[in-house]
């Protein structure tokens, strides 16, 4: 019975993933699955280095029934230190469902949480990912 339930869950997840593919592909792309949106992001330059500015290329896919993203906000924090970056990133639309975030710099080694706030005007979803910098 347990195996049968697991099988159903896997089928559902894979069908959702196929239905919602962010418009960003290639090397170094990482994906975050949210309830309403799927977001793909890629740092440039890669890999991310402590104390060096980077730009993030971002693609967002709205799941079925969800409005397209209107704006995007990007931030990063060190949860264990309870502080954020020394810089406030700027996000520029780069065509349909594509964005570029500039002015991101993770200034200390350790665990950082990058937060992407997808806004539609009426609603918002925060998508988070964690990275460890040496």
């Amino acid at each position: 019975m347990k195996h049968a339930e697991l099988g159903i869950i896997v089928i559902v997840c894979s069908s959702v993933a196929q239905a919602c593919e962010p418009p960003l592909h290639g090397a170094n792309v990482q994906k975050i699955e949210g309830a309403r949106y799927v977001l793909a992001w890629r740092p440039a330059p890669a890999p991310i280095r402590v104390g060096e500015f980077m730009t993030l290329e971002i693609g967002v896919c709205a799941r079925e029934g969800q409005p397209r993203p209107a704006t995007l906000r990007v931030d990063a924090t060190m949860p264990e230190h309870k502080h954020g970056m020394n810089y406030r990133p700027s996000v520029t639309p780069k065509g349909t469902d594509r964005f570029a975030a500039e002015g991101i710099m993770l200034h200390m080694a350790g665990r950082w949480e990058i937060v992407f706030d997808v806004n539609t005007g009426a609603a918002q979803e925060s998508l988070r990912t964690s990275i460890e910098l040496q």
Partner: protein
Amino acid sequence: MRAVLLAVALMLASAAAVAQGVAFSVEERARILAHGPWPPAVTRDPSNRVSGSSDAIDFGRRLFSDGALSRSGYIGCVTCHQPDRALTDLRPRAHGMADVDRNTPTLANLRLQRWYGWGGSSDSLWMASIRPLLDTRELDTDAAFIVRRFSLNEDLTCRYRKVFGRAPDHADDAMLVNVGKALAAFVETLVTGRTPFDEFRDALERNDRAAMARYPAAAQRGLKLFVGRGNCFVCHTGPNFSNGEFHDTGIPFFVVPGKVDPGRHEAIRALRDSRFNLLGRFNDDASRKNTTATRHVVLEHRHWGEFRTPSLRNVAVTPPYMHNGSLASLRDVVLHYSEIDGERLHADGERILRKLSLTEEQIGDLVAFLQTLTDAAGERRLLPSIDPAPCR
């Protein structure tokens, strides 16, 4: 069974680098390697059109040692940035025309920085070179005064014209900027050489155990603390041993009773208010690609009392330490971090700086490691000689 043991042994060997009994984990090895290679590739500063120009470097070299820029006529950059004292002055706090609130930082490896000064009030080396010209406690000069000085010195006038294509007769911001850019062109040539740590780091990278074994055991133990329990690497990272950013390290920011040094907080305000920052008309990079930091920097209350993470290269020859020169020796610095008073830190939440309670041996090991960051020249930074031939 033997095959399993061999596999385990190989795994352990690849997971840790061992030299003279000090084992480094895979994580520690990665952190050590991040502090090189050295020296890094030198690139010219796109915000400074005379960066890398031999005429500008020569002109900046002359201005650096000349009292012509100061109101008194006998104080120059070299008064505080002394070549035989590692380009600093060994005083707790600088003294130009009057006492200054902060310690004189060394001028080596500045091309690698993003912000300049202890608070980071300048976003370019040429902007940082203008600041002491105008500070009444340092060189106490202005554009009109510099024009008068040049008018009395044919050689400097000729060299100015050679570099900037016009006579030094304009008592305006462009005069200050040009002098700043010539000084910067010279200062960015001041770099430190390879150190015993660099030899060890490169040997570690190529897994050359014989070369690794030449690095003193105490320094290896200190390095392990540096990239491990001490957490020093969190801020002192990268080939220049600095993340280039700002932190509150528990050093009191009272200059005298009743007067505080706001550090980064005040510096961001000064940066934004200045007509010499990279967002202004004196940035020679038309692409403005070099303005990312200035455009995105935020001013928050937490920046109060924060100061720039200094490079640790040649740190052993640049005492005293911290933004106010309040710690006399490297041992004092290590002891400060080992016994840090959490109540003095104003950061919220969990802090990276925690009392370490290091033993005397561990303190000695960390100091031994820091001493291996010194290059062969040490405190004697011989400047290029000045050609006595007159300018034509």
